[in-house]
């Protein structure tokens, strides 16, 4: 999952980035409010961790600007402002969650997973599509109840498909979801990962929509 982190404190920012990376997220880090707004508007991320006291522009203003432009990306505000009034203001400005520093790494990761899940209309913690089950918290995948070993990229790709089950995704969209900035993506990388997924799971699970992209059917065939 690609996460945008907006935090101006070098030490805390590098800590959150390293910690969330350990937890299986891909983190892009910006250090000021203007950059945060720009990235929010670009909409390349599944969730945002937003500090409020940012240079150049307050995080709250970045959030408001994004919501005014109908950007629905889930935003978790992570701040030292603990006053109830500040929390209310943050939530009313469009934040989906509000955490006070200091925060536990595992809690932050769990809340981000929950935000992404809810943003995709999922109420179950485990994602299911036909015979396939994916547990974001445990980072595990099952096919007909049997554990499937996936590489990190394959897992990320499957999660993107399952979160967007029934929706056709272009190769560019998939790349945006998967890769951090500055990552060189070979032209056929996504195809290779999809090939591997089909091989490890089931061939008909991910369909190719010619000329458009790929889609994972919500009811991806009966269990064989």
């Amino acid at each position, binding site marked *: 999952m690609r996460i945008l982190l907006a935090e*101006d*404190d*070098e*030490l*805390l920012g*590098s*800590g*959150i980035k*390293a*910690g969330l990376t*350990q*937890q299986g997220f891909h983190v892009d880090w910006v250090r000021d409010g203007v950059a945060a707004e720009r990235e929010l508007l670009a909409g390349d991320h599944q969730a945002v961790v937003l500090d409020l*006291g940012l*240079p*150049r522009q307050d995080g709250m203003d970045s959030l408001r600007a994004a919501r005014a432009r109908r950007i629905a990306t889930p935003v978790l505000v992570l701040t*030292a*402002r*603990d*006053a109830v009034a500040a929390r209310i203001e943050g939530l009313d400005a469009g934040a989906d969650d509000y955490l*006070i*520093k*200091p*925060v*536990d*790494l*595992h809690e932050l990761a769990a809340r981000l997973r929950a935000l992404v899940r809810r943003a995709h209309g999922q109420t179950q913690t485990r994602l299911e599509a036909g015979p396939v089950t994916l547990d974001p918290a445990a980072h595990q995948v099952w096919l007909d109840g049997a554990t499937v070993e996936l590489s990190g990229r394959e897992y990320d790709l499957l999660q993107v498909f399952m979160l967007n089950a029934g929706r056709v995704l272009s190769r560019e969209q998939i790349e945006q979801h998967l890769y951090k900035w500055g990552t060189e993506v070979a032209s056929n990388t996504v195809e290779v990962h999809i090939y591997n997924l089909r091989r490890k799971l089931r061939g008909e699970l991910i369909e190719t929509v010619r000329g458009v992209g790929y889609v994972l059917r919500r009811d991806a065939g009966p269990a064989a």
Partner: protein
Amino acid sequence: MSPSGAALPRSTLSLQARLLATVLGLVGLVWLSVVVATWYDTGHELDELLDAHLAQAASLLVMQRLDELEGDNFPPPPTLHKYQTRVAIQVWHEGRLVVRSTNAPEAPLGFGEAPGLRTSVIDGEAWRVLTTPGREPDVLIHVGELESARHDILLASLRSIAWPMLLALPLLALGIWWAVRGAMRPLRQLGQAVALRRPQALQPLSAHAVPPEVAPLVRALNGLFERMADLLESERRFTADAAHELRTPIAAIRMQAQVAQGATREPERTQALAATLLGCDRAARLIEQLLQLARLEGEVARGGGAVDPAGTVSADLTATALGLMADLELKAQVRGQSLALLAPGPVHVPMPGALLQVLLRNLTDNALRYSPDGARVQLSMEGPAPGQVAALVVEDGGPGLPPEAVARLGERFFRVLGTGQTGSGLGWSIVQRVARLYGLSVSADRSPALRGLRVTVIWIDTPRADIDVGQSAGLH
């Protein structure tokens, strides 16, 4: 002291009770003097009037011949008035009582034969007696009246004044009580309005419809509320800012520690642990600065007491700076920075060494922190000159500050953004606080030599810091 006398000290009596007692006491006193004056005045007038009546009665007797009075020729005088019975008549002839009214005593009403008015006591009763010779020279006439009768008339005439007065007194008390109560209502309402307030409610009281006597109190209260609101607001902001500033390094420490915990590769773990330590140092410095600031504020709250007139407190600027530089040299070397000291020799300033060190450390630390790698930081000091005891200049080769940022320096937790440094902005607050305590002049501008920030601190030469230190310590 009697128990009743020790009841209440004067000041604890309610205004209402005090006013009531004073007014009633005064009215009572006035009435009493009116009654006394009337008593004497009326008594005197009455005496004259009744004496004249005695004289009239006597003159009628004087006109009679003795034989007309004597024996059966003189019937008992008819009673024509209720007070008349108290008027007694005696006619003496050659020492013998020849005529007497029924109410007259046997004993002579008057002593001797001297004519005139006098008071005599017969059988324990006081009489007012007019003595006059009769028509014949050997006849003596006494016309007397009981003093008690006159007393009764006087009392009766006074009663008509006293009754309304006595009746009016409670009515007056009631009226005063009611009027005072009404007059006190604005005060009572004010008291209630203040009593019902929550401690945080510091909006001003309404000064409308308040009597002019109460208006100063309302204004004073509003002034107090305003100052308290300011104080609360600055405390609230400080707490919020301090919380913010403390939370961020602690959040960083926690996050980095968890990263180290979950690291699978050795370099990652090492890096996270180093970052954790860095966070600890930052938090420690922040806490140290907060403590310094709190101590300084405590100092201010105790009334400063900083400038001691005897001049016994003194520290050497040069020596303190040398000690500090030994401390900071290592830190400067890490970033390739150099520290220089220009001093003419010992420079003594009238403040405790510990506080001087706080001042110097914060200024030098800021200069090093906001200067680029390899920059030069220079401390120069001067001894006494006209108008100054000593002066200290700290210059750096950093980017300097735009004028609007200079104006905001010293706001707690204000820090110039985009410096890539992790200061809290507390250093300047501390410098300013020390400056205010000791009446120092602190100013900041661009250094002509090093092109960075130049901070000038001057220990002003005044006999006593009665100057407005808030002004002189302000940055311009």
